[in-house]
């Protein structure tokens, strides 16, 4: 009995001490109105740090800047997009933060987005991706009338120009930093990104022979990434030659099967979402435990007439990668690292893209690292 009382007493003291210790840290930051130029080029006034956020895109980048605390600021989420487009990531978030499943789903701009739902939630800011702007022009006016600012970020690569990419990632991340009052961490994140990208582009300057590569989608047999596709930019930055860019001007398009035989690529990459190729099976992603299914899928994907004579197949330089890794989020540097390593295995012997991704998760994402993100034919 006596010992229990003592334990209780100490606990009480401990709790009080903790409370005291936390008080000064929690000093409320002074709210101020700042002007932000977002990635669409709009100037927006926002009262920062924000307390209530409606997030239409980029939970990963948002939480990488804001950490766990920022998650609690989310009052509305475009969970529609997560469930449809990145089901594995959604499962990860909900498994670790079950309350996220209960967040109001405000929908995907151009599809299910409901501006009234957002107004009802009275957020301090709405964060969206630049690609959503064209669907939101009318809604932005309505939101602004209701006093809710909308800020657009952009993490998509738009060319093979590294400086431009850095500029874009830098701007987007610093905006998130300013909104969440985490500018130091934002800067840290940008430096991390730059370092990981530079690791690749600095070294490829010495490359003399550009290996031929092609990236196919897993959802349409001969759909390859062309001149305006993000994979083309990664291949260019990794100093390879994307054969499909010669014939496909758009971001992706169908190539003539013969063309692949004629060009004889050294590296073939398949980009695959978590719902490969259309819901039949799950080969890759956060939720996948091992590479067995992905490797099986690769074997089926290369089972095309004449492919046994293609360099990439002969030398087993055929790979599969998570589609979500390739664009639109700050950890896209991992995709660049993978592509560069696949193009120049000797040059990047010491580069471990998976380790990079793990480090990124451990340092920035409030989720444990897990999953199969890329693998090779073996």
């Amino acid at each position, binding site marked *: 009995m006596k010992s229990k009382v003592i334990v209780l007493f100490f606990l009480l003291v401990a709790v009080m001490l903790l409370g005291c210790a936390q008080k000064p840290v929690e000093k409320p930051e002074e709210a101020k109105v700042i002007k932000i130029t977002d990635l669409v080029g709009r100037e927006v006034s926002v009262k920062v740090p924000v307390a209530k956020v409606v997030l239409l895109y980029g939970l990963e980048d948002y939480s990488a800047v804001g950490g766990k605390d920022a998650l609690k600021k989310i009052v509305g989420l475009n969970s529609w997009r997560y469930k*449809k*487009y990145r089901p594995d990531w959604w499962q990860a978030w909900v498994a670790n933060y079950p309350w996220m499943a209960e967040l109001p789903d405000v929908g995907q701009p151009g*599809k299910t987005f409901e501006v009234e739902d957002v107004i009802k939630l009275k957020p301090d800011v709405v964060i969206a991706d630049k690609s959503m702007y064209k669907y939101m022009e009318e809604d932005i006016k309505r939101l602004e009338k209701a006093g809710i600012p909308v800020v657009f970020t952009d993490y998509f690569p738009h060319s093979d120009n590294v400086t431009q990419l850095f500029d874009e990632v830098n701007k987007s991340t610093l905006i998130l930093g300013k909104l969440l009052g985490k500018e130091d961490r934002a800067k840290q994140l940008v430096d991390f990104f730059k370092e990981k990208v530079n690791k690749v582009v600095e070294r490829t300057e010495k490359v003399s022979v550009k290996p031929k590569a092609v990236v196919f*989608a*897993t*959802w*349409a*047999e*001969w*759909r390859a990434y062309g001149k305006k596709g993000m994979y083309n930019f990664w291949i260019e930055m990794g100093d390879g030659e994307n054969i499909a860019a*010669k*014939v*496909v*001007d758009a971001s*992706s*398009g*169908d*190539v*003539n*099967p*013969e*063309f692949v*035989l*004629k060009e004889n690529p050294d590296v073939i990459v398949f980009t695959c*979402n978590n*719902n490969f*190729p*259309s*819901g*039949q099976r799950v080969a890759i992603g956060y939720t996948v435990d091992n590479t067995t299914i992905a490797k099986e899928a690769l074997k*089926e994907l290369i089972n095309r*007439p*004449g492919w046994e*004579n293609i360099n990439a197949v002969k030398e087993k330089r055929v790979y599969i990668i998570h*589609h979500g890794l390739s664009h639109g989020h700050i950890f896209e540097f991992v995709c660049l690292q993978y592509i560069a390593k696949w193009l120049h295995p000797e040059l990047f012997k010491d580069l471990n893209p998976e380790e990079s991704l793990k480090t990124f998760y451990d340092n920035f994402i409030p989720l444990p690292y897990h999953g199969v993100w890329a693998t090779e034919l073996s």
Partner: protein
Amino acid sequence: MQEMQEICLYRELVFRRLLFISLFLILCIVLSLLNLSIGPISIGIGEIFHTLITQGNDTAHVVIWDYRLPWTLMALLVGGALGLAGLEMQTILNNPLASSYTLGISAGAGFGAALAYILGIKVLPNVPMEFVVPINAFVFAFLTCMLIMLIGKIRGFTSETLVLGGIAISFMFQSLLALLEYYASEETLQAIVFWLFGSLTKASLFKAQVVFIVLAIVATLLMLKSWKITALRLGDEKAKSLGVNTERLRIEVLIYVSLLTSVAICFVGIIGFVGLVAPHMARMLIGEDQRFLIVGSILCGGVILSAGAITSKVIVPGAIFPIGIITSMLGVPFFMFLVIRGRKQIW
């Protein structure tokens, strides 16, 4: 004297019809040869023939046997099947606008394909991956036909009932398809749109054989009925007075056409316009006599789709342009020319 003149006139007519049929046949052969010889890898005509009669594992053999020959045959056969199906639909429905589109068969097939792509629903279990989408599309296309049949059974097989029923079914499947598309992810949406545009890249010799067998059987069966079908074009009353059981004939032809259309579109997706235009072109040049018109429509369909297939390869060498877009773009101007310049009444 009068009699002699009429015989001469008839002979001239038959000669004219045979002339156009031979012309179509020659065009089919020429276009197929072009289809076989055009591609990113250059193979001479001589080598193509050599490759076709020998076996081997070199690049030329792979290219010809695994890619170009299935592609070429599929273009020819699917074009022919769509042409014939369009012709008979227009005839039994007595409607110049009838095609697999009007009756909702294409929309049904599209919905079946989308079910496989978007929800992963298989109509038949344990089907190899390659055939999941075709079988779904086939089953739904055929179901659509049966639905039209049911409407006909209830309301009578008049062309108005069938056309209106077809339009209703078409809208139903189109909205269901739109609903599926609305909820699809980016990737599956791309896959289904790709299918809806139509593509010959999924061709194989096996699929070509299936289409060939169905086309051959249906064409033969229709040829046997050609007199009755021709009579139908005189109007129901006249056909009945000639002893044709019009309702039975409509049902029978509808079944053949359903089978033909379903098989044709299930492998390559929806290729528009061929089924509508090919029969009209053939009819303008050949006339109403089904004995010639059946062959003419098949060949004309083959010509249009083969030409489309070549164009889809050469617009950007090395890439494949969706063939469904090309057939329309190619077919419309020519069709307009015939409509405006043609001397005869079209329908």
